């Protein structure tokens, strides 16, 4: 990966992407339940409620397409981990939603120009 970028700015880019994503989802009527929830198995970026469906949301942010699109960073392995994390979150909070969905928000923040946000509902 890019060696020139410091860890701090990488985190900063991630945090920026997450806030852009959250604003985008809330605008669509979703309600934030949890943010950057961590456990031994990993981290969930955003946990939201969309009607009576629980949404586990992964946010991927990129500043260029040099290493592929943000979408391509979420493969089957990551999806499996998110499912396991979702189960852990539900267990810990004792919530029984009608359905659970895993979403992806891809944020592209080019060096100049506006950010591009895309929301992919229901990864499978």
């Amino acid at each position, binding site marked *: 990966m890019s060696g020139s970028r410091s860890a701090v700015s990488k985190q900063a880019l991630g945090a920026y992407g997450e806030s852009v994503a959250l604003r985008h989802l809330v605008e669509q009527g979703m309600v934030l339940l949890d943010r950057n929830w961590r456990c031994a198995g990993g981290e969930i970026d955003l946990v939201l409620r969309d009607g009576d469906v629980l949404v586990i949301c992964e946010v991927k942010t990129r500043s260029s397409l040099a290493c*592929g*699109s943000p*979408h*391509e960073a979420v*493969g089957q392995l990551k*999806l499996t981990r998110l499912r396991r994390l979702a189960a852990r979150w539900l267990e810990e909070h004792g919530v029984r939603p009608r359905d659970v969905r895993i979403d992806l928000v*891809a944020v592209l923040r080019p060096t100049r120009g506006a950010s591009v946000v895309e929301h992919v509902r*229901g*990864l499978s």
Partner: protein
Amino acid sequence: MAFATTRTIALQGASGHLIDVQADVSPGVVGTTLVGRPDVSLNEARDRCRMAVVNSDLDWPSTRRITILLSPADMAKRGTHFDLAIAVAVLGASGQLPAAALEDTVFVGELTLSGGLRGVPGVLPMTLAAAARGITRVVVPEPQASEAAMVPGMSVFGMRSLAQVVAELQGVEVPEAAPVAPMSGARLLSWRGEERLGELDLADLRGMDDARYAVEVAAAGGHHLMLSGPKGAGKTTLAERIPGLLPDLDPTESLELTAIHSLAGALEPGDGRLTRPPFFAPHHDASKASLLGGGTGRVRPGEISRAHCGVLFLDEFPLFRTDVIDGLRQPLESGEVHLARGGESATFPARGMVVLACNPCPCGGYHAQARHNTCDCSELKRRVYRARVSGPVSDRIDILRHVAPLSPHDATDRFAEPESTATVRSRVEAARRRQAERYAGCSWRLNGQAPGPLLGDAWPLEPAARRAVDDELYAGRLTSRGAVRVHRLAWTVADLRGVERPGLAEADVALRLRTGEPLDLATLARRAG
């Protein structure tokens, strides 16, 4: 709805199936899945297509989940010619091509990473299959456009690259593209005498009247022929001159033959339609797969099918492998080869003349008369050798002919003027015209292919001739299969002589041709005169 359908053809043996290539582009975990029983080379199409699209300055939907289905999904598919249909379907599904442009069109071609369109084997049979299913447009690699254009009523688009195909479908100006290397390699070998067969003429041969006549009958009626005789008697020399006696192929035959050669991957670009009857003389080491068809992976037609409408010459026939000899039975009888495999089966036409040549013994020196006999084979060796010649295969051969060594008289007869290929060919052509008139509207064209039972009812012999053949049958000198062969031969003899219906004279000649007895040609000529 991000969804599009294109069509291509999957070949299974000699039959083509219309395949729907459906692409769905929707949000989800990014990736490309190809379903519908693709083999390894076809599964690699995902990567070829992706790079070809990207390098053609088009958009591959890399942030979407792409599902490609090849339906019917239960049929195993192989080959690389699906690439173009897949790429176009993905472009259609991602909204880069109008759906209407994809209708009633079959796409065939392999893509290179740079977006070029490479040739694939079997374009002609694929186009034929498409036409049979009511498709009116095919898009094929440019080097093979001439092959596809042989199919009447088909509008053919020969393209060099994916970018050209897309422009054509969008209805915009087609960009220039560099020509793509043709599928088959350049010929590395060429040698003097390569065109040797074209220069052979029957006039080069002295004597051998019986054998010459047998060859003429075989060529006229499409009969299988066995030439036996001691080494150096001229069996090969004679057999090589048979294709020269055959007329040019008619349009149907030519299309059939070209399609077979295309399936075998043996059609060079620019060859065009094959119009001359083929001649194949495989070495006696040939395997069953090479001679009858088969092979690993795709089932390919063998030499016997490539010699469809022409001549397959098996020199030193008894030296061929036993499984090859046994495998010849079915095509000799039915004019087609049926190959069955675990997963797929294929039927290829094989209506060529089969000409066999054999020696009287393994060393070739045997002669019935002791003073000519130079054979030093053991009796056992001779018997094993002969057992291969006789039996089921020779029963399916119409004409048996012994080629005797040239007598000193004939060899030095400076006044004899042997007939030329052109003279004999004109007689063969006349006889074939008579057969074409008689069998108009039938599925066969020649006496040698006419079905036995029908022949007896619709085109009987004169009663006296019929009785003569029946007598031989009752006496056990002829099998019932043999009787049918004699019947066919009698018709060919009659066609050659311009006789309306075969009589006793024709039946007599036919019987002699069949059993290998010497012909009484002088008598025949006198009666005809």
